[in-house]
């Protein structure tokens, strides 16, 4: 885990070969665009009830938002080296709540639940709000496709390493990830995305972008495989702010 998660890559343009990155980005964008097109064609040509048409329109909106998040992340990652990011003290639990609130409509539309767990104690991390939000959104977007229908996806912030580090993880409860697939996920975690899927429905682009964002905050990403799903997490330095008070 450590080796792969601490790989620090440059901007997209510095990847050894740009082609796999472009192919992966194109592939990831193709899925939401293809779905939006199919739903739009359905609205144009099909004769569905008004309830069904509203459901389709809602799906178009949420799918386009997912595509837009990806384009925004892609744009953001090319600017990581252009300027220093302002690192600040972040209430990680509060940010988890915000991400859960933002993604709840998407989860609800998929009959899934996204919730935040953990105590009420503030867990303060040093990072950049925007980048951490993007990482957690990415992990939660990814978890949506692997969570079982009856099981929630859980975002949780905790401190470790004697309070020196903060881990914010997104846990999905779904079928166990086969070991060969898991090996590939771990191998490519945070490294350049693959032209083909490292985990089905994903080229690893989201993980790559998350790894870039974490690196810009002197953090790292990682993953844990469970018998009933997986946790993807980001580790950051803990803020000492409270200790100074």
């Amino acid at each position, binding site marked *: 885990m450590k080796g792969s998660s601490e790989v620090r890559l440059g901007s997209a343009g510095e990847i050894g070969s740009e082609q796999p990155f472009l192919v992966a980005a194109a592939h990831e964008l193709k*899925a939401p*665009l293809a779905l939006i*097109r*199919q739903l739009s064609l*359905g609205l144009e040509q099909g004769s569905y009830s008004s309830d069904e048409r509203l459901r389709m329109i809602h799906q178009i909106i949420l799918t386009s938002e997912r595509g837009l998040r990806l384009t925004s992340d892609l744009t953001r990652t090319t600017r990581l080296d252009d300027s220093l990011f302002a690192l600040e003290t972040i209430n990680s639990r509060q940010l988890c709540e915000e991400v859960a609130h933002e993604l709840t409509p998407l989860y609800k539309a998929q009959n899934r639940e996204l919730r935040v767990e953990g105590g009420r104690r503030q867990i303060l991390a040093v990072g950049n709000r925007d980048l951490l939000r993007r990482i957690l959104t990415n992990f939660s977007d990814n978890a949506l*496709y692997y969570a079982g229908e009856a099981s929630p996806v859980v975002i949780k912030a905790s401190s470790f390493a004697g309070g020196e580090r903060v881990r914010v993880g997104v846990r999905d409860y*779904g*079928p166990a990830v086969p070991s060969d697939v898991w090996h590939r996920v771990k191998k490519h975690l945070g490294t350049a995305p693959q*032209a083909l899927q490292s985990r089905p429905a994903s080229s690893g682009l989201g993980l790559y972008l998350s790894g870039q964002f974490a690196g810009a905050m002197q953090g790292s990403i990682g993953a844990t495989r469970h018998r009933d799903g997986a946790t993807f997490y980001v580790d950051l330095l803990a803020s000492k702010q409270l200790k100074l008070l």
Partner: protein
Amino acid sequence: MNKPFSVLIIEDDTWFAQQQTRILETAGFIVRHAVDGLAGIEAIDTSTPDAVILDIFLPGPNALVLLHEMQSHADLASIPVVICTNSVAVLPQTSLTAYGVKAVLDKATMRPHDLVAAIKRELI
């Protein structure tokens, strides 16, 4: 009145599968949906559909594993399969015919009637 044909959609994108279902049900098919390879194999075993619409990259066993499994059972080998994927460019289409694949549809360019036409071509 003839019994309607049944179609099994094996697709991990739930909303894409819902749209395929709307199209096929409007055309008079009975549609079932499996969200991954394992559920797909189970659904084929239990309901023996008249045709299968199959995405390529799935959680669990992927489409090629599933096609291989179908070909290894005499009663399942003749079920026509239509591949529906975003990854047409990387598919070895010539070798897919040996696995009972009758058509390959590109999710990005297909139109609703293409799906119905591909299924009807094999069943009617």
